């Protein structure tokens, strides 16, 4: 609440200063002999930036350091017996202190030590906020004054504002990039912890996956075995089935849309097809579980093939349907991008329409189509919801589409759902699997984008 007030005050000050700066510049323009370098509103922005930006930066910096400083101060003031607690207990205590301080209700405090620390924490935090508010507001006032003082016809306000905008944009994109790097690094770090316990070769080439590790040393049958090959083959099997559905249907419908359909039909059918991509994957998931799997099982029964109710086939079929629009939409784009001059060249030689499409248009569009397929494959491999709902949990090493298999994503989910210790190989193996998944989809994406770009260059 207080914080929102502070921000609102700062915003109001910036707005006020903007008007003042603009007014001042307009006045200069009327009275002065010199022409203004920029439009008056740029002077306004310039002053507003001077007023708001330093204060905002201060607040951001302050808030990101505050917890650490407060914690250090509170821990420093704890009685010696509390200070001597092991690190984990100490951190528990500090958590309680923070919560007590936040609620302001000390009735449920576990110990007088916590109560005292919470009181101190409250006071410190209030002081800290007060100090921050005072400094930020003074910074805003000083900045505003400085900005107003520097207004003169020669001031290149427009260029300065431009520079500020650019810095802001660079900062935003840097933030996005660093987030990505951070995610990858944490994945890598946890995976290294895993590979400390389980050798890389066992993980990559082992044929047996049963990640239950013993909680107690004397537990039976829970040694934990982390051979990920069955997961890889399961993922592969389901993806292959999905692509067997999606590639022909997607490609053929793209050809129809791009080459045969009349514009009116196309304008209706294309959005409909693309709507498939907008259906939440969880809906596909229960479609697979409730409709496709029972249907296949019954079908299998009637023709004498045993089909598991969590068969790779059912999952792959539904995932394939989900992927159709990726392939059809991307292929449609690349097919439409093949210049008409090529088609006319073929027609001019006496080729029929389907000959032209088969022999000239598709080969010309092939790199783009392959790029689209690769993107779709990476989508299939990373798909989680459908497989979590429809595929099995037990890791069978099989190429039989009627059997139940499990995938990398399913295992990651089941490893991380529920209680877990973050130092057991069982939990850590999820990160190793995540890393593999990330590397594979990254490679697919890089190759696909490269292929697509190569193709684009040729016709632009």
């Amino acid at each position, binding site marked *: 609440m207080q914080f929102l007030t502070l921000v609102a005050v700062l915003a109001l000050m910036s707005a006020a200063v903007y008007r003042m700066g603009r007014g001042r510049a307009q006045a200069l323009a009327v009275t002065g002999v010199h022409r203004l370098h920029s439009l008056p509103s740029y002077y306004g922005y310039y002053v507003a930036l001077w007023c708001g930006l330093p204060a905002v930066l201060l607040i951001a910096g302050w808030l990101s350091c505050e917890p650490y400083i407060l914690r250090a101060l509170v821990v420093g003031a704890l009685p010696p017996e509390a200070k001597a607690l092991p690190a984990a207990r100490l951190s528990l205590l500090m958590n309680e202190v923070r919560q007590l301080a936040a609620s302001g209700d000390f009735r449920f405090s576990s110990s007088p030590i916590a109560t005292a620390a919470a009181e101190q924490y409250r006071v410190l935090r209030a002081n800290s906020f007060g100090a921050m508010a005072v400094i930020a507001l003074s910074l805003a006032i000083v900045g505003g004054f400085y900005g107003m003082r520097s207004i003169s016809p020669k001031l290149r306000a427009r260029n300065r504002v431009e520079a500020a905008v650019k810095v802001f944009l660079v900062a935003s994109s840097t933030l996005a990039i660093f987030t990505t790097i951070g995610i990858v690094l944490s994945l890598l770090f946890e995976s290294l912890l895993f590979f400390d316990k389980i050798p890389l070769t066992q993980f990559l080439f082992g044929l047996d996956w049963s990640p239950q590790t013993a909680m107690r040393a004397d537990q039976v049958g829970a040694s934990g075995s982390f051979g990920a090959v069955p997961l890889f083959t399961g993922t592969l099997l389901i993806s292959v089935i999905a692509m067997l559905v999606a590639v022909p249907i997607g490609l053929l419908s793209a050809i129809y849309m791009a080459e045969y359909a009349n514009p009116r039909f196309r304008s209706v059918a294309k959005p409909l097809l693309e709507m498939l991509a907008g259906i939440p994957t969880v809906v596909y998931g229960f479609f697979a579980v409730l409709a496709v799997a029972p249907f296949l099982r019954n079908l299998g029964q009637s023709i004498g093939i045993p089909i598991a109710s969590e068969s790779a086939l059912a999952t792959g079929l539904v995932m394939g349907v989900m992927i159709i629009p990726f392939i059809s939409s991307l292929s449609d784009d690349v097919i439409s991008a093949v210049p008409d*001059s*090529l088609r006319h*060249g073929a027609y*001019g030689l*006496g080729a029929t329409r389907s000959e032209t499409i088969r*022999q000239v248009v598709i080969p010309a569009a092939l790199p783009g189509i392959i790029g689209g397929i690769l993107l779709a494959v990476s989508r299939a491999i990373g798909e989680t919801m459908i497989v979590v709902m429809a595929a099995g949990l037990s890791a069978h090493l099989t190429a039989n589409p009627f059997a139940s298999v499990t995938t990398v994503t399913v295992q990651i989910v089941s490893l991380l759902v529920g209680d877990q210790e973050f130092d057991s190989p069982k939990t850590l193996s999820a990160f190793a699997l995540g890393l593999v998944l990330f590397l594979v989809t990254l490679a697919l994406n890089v190759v696909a984008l490269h292929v697509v770009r190569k193709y684009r260059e040729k016709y632009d």
Partner: protein
Amino acid sequence: MSTTSDAYLRQDADAAAGMAKITAGDVNVHYGDKHALKGINLAIRANEVTALIGPSGCGKSTFLRCINRMNDLIEGARVTGLITLDRQDIYDRELDVVQLRARVGMVFQKPNPFPKSIYDNVAYGPRLHGLAHSTADLEEIVVTSLERAGLYDEVKDRLDEPGTGLSGGQQQRLCIARAIAVSPEVILMDEPCSALDPIATAKVEELIDELRENFTIVIVTHSMQQAARVSQRTAFFHLGELVEVGDTEQIFTNPQHKLTQGYITGRFG
């Protein structure tokens, strides 16, 4: 479109004498509401180069596209009148468009080699129409076509490289070789040199002159010098109408019509 229509009877003297390879009788083309060609009567003689000239938008390309029925591909285009190739109505229901286009080849304004190898570009037509009975046959066709297009010496060591990697002028000669490879009787060229530099243009013009021996050529050009250099007959179009047609020399030295005169002396266009 019966063969005894007035239009047919109104053919000029050449047609009556049976010298014409292609005749157009009262040809009208509409694009939707737009009347793009108006009552064209024209006879094109065999083994000659006929140039179609006129300001842009006057319907030269449209007329050219009538001859191999490429207008069929344009939505909303409607062609009426009579066009014959060797006295046979090419818009006849019985006639197979695909075969017509094998007899009437086309070279486009912008070189449009397929993204295939040089060899496959030239072999495309023969393969399509089953003109070669063996690989040796096919190779022979490809080589002679490239030779006749004056390109063979430049590309003989890299026949398996993509045709799109050639220079603009080479690409256009590759497209000519591709058209020749199906042994058409007529070759239509729509401003074949407009995307080429002067040296490449000179090569293609030279080639056109040689090709005249074996093919009937109709060329659209916006360059009067080019028309004068390569053609024997010239037809001048203006606003969808055929204003004047005659021997190239006569058109350029002694035009009968004031519009023609204005155009070739560069007063408009």
